[in-house]
């Protein structure tokens, strides 16, 4: 049998080493080409085009936040919108904190702790202020870390209830079925905040972005993302 047939039937060891390398490079080039094809958010979103990137962490509505990530973020995933409850909804705990801070002054007028020696009264006052500080800190943490994140791929709802309970829900943009925005009450109308309800086909069927600023803008942006995802699927650019 000619040599050439033997070599065709049994590939040489150098050929078997090359094949996986070629397969990996083909996959990576395909990924690269998809990445090149996926458009920048400003190209398809009017909402994002009008927004400027922000590095401020204390805003309730942060479009294109810089230096902001979340734990399960994928390599190519970009955080496009970070939402928290509107600051107006947090006035309640700020007000309670101020009232609690004034309590020792009010009690000193009434003479509530008069039966105790001065050093006991002093320690009690220090303890009270530490308690108020702890209350305010926890309330602030609840506001700051209960966030809603919209990326170019997913919608994420991060919930921390008290200090002991954490819940993070994810839904792919593809799975979104229905979006609605509700603004209610005088404060909601004046300060333009409300609840955005997202119904999905995933494991978590409903996402409520409660009391977020500019609910209609958020809804418009989600619709733009949905349209872009559909377009990607049509063009074969979907990841």
């Amino acid at each position, binding site marked *: 049998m000619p040599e050439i047939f033997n070599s065709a039937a049994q590939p040489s060891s150098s050929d078997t080493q090359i094949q996986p390398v070629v397969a990996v490079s083909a996959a990576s080039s395909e990924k690269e080409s998809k990445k090149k094809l996926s458009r920048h958010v400003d190209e398809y979103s009017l909402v994002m085009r009008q927004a400027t990137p922000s590095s401020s962490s204390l805003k309730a509505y942060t479009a294109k936040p810089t230096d902001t990530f*979340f734990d399960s973020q994928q390599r190519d995933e970009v955080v496009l919108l970070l939402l928290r409850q509107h600051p107006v909804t947090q006035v309640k705990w700020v007000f309670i904190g101020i009232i609690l801070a004034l309590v020792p002054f009010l009690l000193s007028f009434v003479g509530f702790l008069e039966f105790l020696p001065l050093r006991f009264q002093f320690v009690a006052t*220090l303890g009270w202020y530490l308690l108020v500080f702890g209350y305010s800190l926890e309330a602030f943490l609840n506001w700051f870390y209960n966030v809603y994140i919209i990326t170019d791929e997913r919608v994420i709802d991060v919930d*921390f209830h008290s200090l002991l309970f954490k819940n993070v829900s994810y839904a792919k943009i593809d799975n979104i079925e229905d979006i609605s925005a509700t603004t209610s009450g005088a404060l909601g109308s004046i300060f333009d905040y409300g609840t955005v309800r997202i119904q999905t086909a995933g494991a978590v069927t409903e996402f409520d972005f409660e009391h977020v600023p500019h609910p209609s803008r958020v809804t418009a942006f989600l619709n733009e993302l949905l349209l872009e995802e559909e377009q990607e699927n049509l063009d074969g650019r979907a990841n």
Partner: protein
Amino acid sequence: MFPELPPISLTSIILDSVRIMFFLGFFLYLIFAFIAVRQIDIMRKTVVTPFAGVIQIIGMLHLLLAFGLLIFSFIYLA
């Protein structure tokens, strides 16, 4: 039927009770402050923002204050 306590003795019983309540309260608060620091750590890892470092410092300060108050009350009220 019951022994009649002199007023000084009664006052010392009340003060001792208040002292123990303070110690116990501050100790429980120290545990709460420690849990808060742990929770801040989990929160920081869940959502990473440039402000996270400041929050961690505030949490540590809160824990230090809670510890300091417990020690201070031990010394000052002893």
